[in-house]
């Protein structure tokens, strides 16, 4: 055996591949029964995938949840699959999507709603698919200092260095109403019409009885009946726009909420972990055409991303996230997220800073692998579709079957399963890390800020369960 004992964990992977080789030489030397057994155990997967394309360009937006892409590059997971990957910052979600569609990029870090919206034709139309969910949670809603002061006056409990969480929009309602009485509307920002942030801030406002406005065929800005007007601002420009007073609050991913704390221009009031516990956030998206032309490459990329997610969520015996600090250091490089290490660290290492005096332990604020995070769940897609219908982005009522069929066109659990099987045979993943599910739907959950239960199999009932929102004919549920 050529394998020598190496003490450090850094070399563990090396050991593994070396022992594979030595086993292979064993195989060629003596063609015996045990070797055949090993062969049957899946050596077919242990071979390198023949990738159709070996140098890739992947786009991302400067947000901490691009981490799986960055880590897969920096820790050599892409290279292990024979891929040379350039990870390129994009200025906003629209440009990113356009670059994927035109082929300037092979794939990208996308909002969960983007592949869905593009496929069903909200905004730019193109068939986008996703084999991998990059992360859960990771967003927050920040309001300006003056709004926070007014909220504190409305709700004396908030006037404390450590106010009770989660903070609902109830304290915001009188402010919005006062403005309405003056013929004005409270202005808030989100990052993209089909972003998770749009649905989250709407959910939060509507849960306290504030109407965020409907979309319609003629109103593509989504402001019909609005009591609070939402507008689109690219994530990196959020703090500057808030400071300039154009908007009074925003919903965005990290580090842009922590940036507001650090610069002292606003106060994060609620995280999306509190709005919907373990909500899917970003996905890795490619065009259907690209996925069809590069069937092995997409598996190879998914493999690298799974390893990356695992690396990011690795914990020691005490449950402390061991690799996050290094990840923050990497992300703070100017060609990646580029914000200060300290700022990125604020939200990525298991805590969330609401105010300098109010730091909460939130170990699941950024989830990259655990809770079966990275699996492309159909039920996640259905949730976004129900919200698109609730707010009128989907202009026509659709039957429940349409929801199920649409997500099947977009989410690719079969690619994920192939990648996982390959990783399991290589020893990078264990069988029990692959979610056990028959139909790729998550079980019913009521982990929302308003406690309204969600079952992906019953989209029509779910849409109709909200006080504020479009209602559909119950007959469409098909039961």
């Amino acid at each position, binding site marked *: 055996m050529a394998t020598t004992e190496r003490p450090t964990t*850094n*070399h563990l*992977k*090396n050991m593994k*591949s070396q022992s594979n*080789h030595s086993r*292979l*030489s064993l*195989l*060629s030397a003596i*063609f015996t029964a045990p070797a*055949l057994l090993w*062969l049957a155990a899946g050596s077919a997967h242990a*071979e*390198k995938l*023949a*990738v159709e394309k*070996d*140098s890739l360009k992947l786009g991302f937006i*400067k947000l901490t949840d691009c981490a799986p892409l960055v880590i897969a*590059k*920096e*820790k*050599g997971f892409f*290279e292990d699959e*024979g891929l*040379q*990957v350039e*990870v390129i*910052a*994009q*200025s906003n979600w629209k440009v990113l999507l356009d670059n994927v569609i*035109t*082929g*300037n990029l092979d794939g990208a870090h996308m909002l969960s709603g983007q592949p869905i919206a593009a496929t069903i034709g909200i905004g730019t139309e193109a068939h986008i698919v996703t084999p991998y969910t990059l992360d859960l949670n990771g967003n927050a809603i920040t309001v300006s200092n003056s709004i926070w002061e007014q909220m504190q006056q409305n709700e004396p409990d908030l*006037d404390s260095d450590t106010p009770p969480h989660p903070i609902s929009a109830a304290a915001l309602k009188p402010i919005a109403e006062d403005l309405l009485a003056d013929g004005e509307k409270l202005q808030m920002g989100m990052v993209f019409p089909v972003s998770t942030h749009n649905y989250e801030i709407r959910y939060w406002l509507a849960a306290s009885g504030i109407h965020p406005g409907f979309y319609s065929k003629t109103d593509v800005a989504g402001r019909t009946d609005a009591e609070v007007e939402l507008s689109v601002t690219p994530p*990196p*420009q959020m*703090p*500057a726009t808030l*400071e300039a007073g154009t908007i009074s609050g925003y919903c965005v991913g990290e580090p842009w909420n922590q*940036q507001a704390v650090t*610069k*002292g*221009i606003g106060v994060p009031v609620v995280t999306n972990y509190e709005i919907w516990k373990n909500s899917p956030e970003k996905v890795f998206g490619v065009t259907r055409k690209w996925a069809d032309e590069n069937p092995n490459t997409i598996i190879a990329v998914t493999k690298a991303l799974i390893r990356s997610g695992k690396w990011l969520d690795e914990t020691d015996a005490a449950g402390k996230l061991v690799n996050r600090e*290094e990840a923050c*250091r*990497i992300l*703070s*490089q*100017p*060609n990646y*997220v*580029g*914000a*200060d*290490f*300290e*700022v990125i660290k604020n939200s990525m290492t298991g805590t969330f800073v609401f105010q*300098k005096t109010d730091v909460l332990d939130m170990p699941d604020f950024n989830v990259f692998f655990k809770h079966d995070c990275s699996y492309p769940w159909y039920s996640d897609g259905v949730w976004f579709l129900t919200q698109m219908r609730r707010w009128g982005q989907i202009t026509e009522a659709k039957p429940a079957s349409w929801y199920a069929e649409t997500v099947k066109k977009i989410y690719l659990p079969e690619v994920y399963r192939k990648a996982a099987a390959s990783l399991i045979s290589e020893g990078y993943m264990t069988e029990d890390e692959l979610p056990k599910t028959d139909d790729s739907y998550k079980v019913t959950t009521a982990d929302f800020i308003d406690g309204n239960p969600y079952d992906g199999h019953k989209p029509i009932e779910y849409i109709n369960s909200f006080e504020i929102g479009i209602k559909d004919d119950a007959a469409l549920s098909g039961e």
Partner: protein
Amino acid sequence: MSAKYTILKGIDIAGLNFLSPVVRLATGEEPAKQMKEIGRLIVIPTLAFLAFFWLWAVVAPKHRTKSGEVPTPSVVWDARAGIWRFHNYETAKQDGFLLQGKERETELARATARIAEVGMLEKIAREQLTAAREASTVKFDTTVAPAKNAYDTLREISRESRKGRTAALKAEAATLNTATEEARLAFLQKLRDTEARTEIDKLELAKLKDRYEEAQEITFPEVKDATRANTVLAEEKQFLVKYIDMLGKDSRELKLAAAKTKLKETRTSFLTATEGDLYRLGSGIIKNEKFIKTTASSKYAKPWTLPKQIVRSLLCVFAGFLLASAIAIPIGILCGLSATFMAAMTPFIALFKPVSPLVWLPIIMIIIGGFMPDPENNAFLMFFDKVPFIKNYKIDPMFLSSAVTVALCSLWATLVNTALGVGAVDKDHMNVARVLRLGFWSRLFKIVIPTALPLIFAGLRISLGVGWMVLVAAEILSTSEGIGKFVNDMYTNGSSESFAQMFVVVFIVGIIGMLLDRIMVVFQRLVSFDSAVPAG
């Protein structure tokens, strides 16, 4: 003696007039006069510049924004070092990726030694940082605590007294049902007074809160310095970790070697196996061969760094400038030759000249995008991939859009100046040409262009200057790699360094713009007849 005049002539042509008194002084010509000239041309500008730096260093820290303090000259100098470090790290990774054999091993040993060293230094730096932080927390608490206490106490008092007042009023209101109108009105007045009282309380409270917040805003330069020192080391360590991986376990050489051994083994078993799946083994060999081929030619995917972005910006501005000249000079000549043509062109010049690059760019991006639906396999773009040097700078649709925008915004100065220059050709010269029966082309090249050259070059000089200014804006908007993209990235990064890094760009853009201008001045002087040098 003649050497001196050649030097002086050279200085004159280069437009470096401030050097000529130095040369004259060195040769002993009228020392008093030369000293005076040196004072005016060298000492005064230097002093002005130093005064500017002094003013900057004094004023900058006074203006604090939410994006951080306005950087002082020394902070900007540090930021320059940061940009350079990032460039060096990435270049080292790019080179390290290709290293082989002995070289790779020595480099690996060097990096491993260095990382141990950096680890030690980082440990010390971290201890210093912790100490600085602790000291600052103590200082923070002692300075902030009084303000906080004052605020908290007053808040409690005003809350309690408000509660008390409200309770008293409510109790009184309960007795009012049987009271007279007068008493009721008196109560209303009381309510009003109480309300006013609450307002006053609120104002006082707000004042204290402001003071509390102001107190919270103290900064700790020692913490900032310690953090910076710590960051520099942590970044180097991060780089070394990756670098060691690249030279060691993840190195291309080792991967190739492993793949080759595996290929050999598979080959042997394929050739000698008497049972088993030969199809699988065979296709395994093909896959392995392909893997070896692609790995052998793979390169490190290096991110763009500022030096490379500067070169790409220069390429882009020259591409735009050449395009502008190719359009503007012929049209300008025609305008100068024919008054009718000039009349036809005037409305276009008047209409398009004032259009901003920010309007042109999106339009051009859409048009060029239409020509190149599949940029990866576009023949025109692939042509540039074969041109040496240029192939390193990835000519893409964004680059072309930026270059065309530069051209559209900068061609007007050349066009107008060319028309003026051609229009000013001496009528006598043209008459002589007519007498000599010179053809159109000979007249153009022998008389018109030589006469118009100085003005054409004056126009080109303005065009290049305009183009350079337009380019940075175009790059910011199109996110085409270059100086503009760098500025945009730094702006969106919003880290403590990025403000200073944008200042670095101001100087880089300024210096390059100045050099471009100097080059054009030299050309302009070379073609001018009034200069002592023949126009060539």
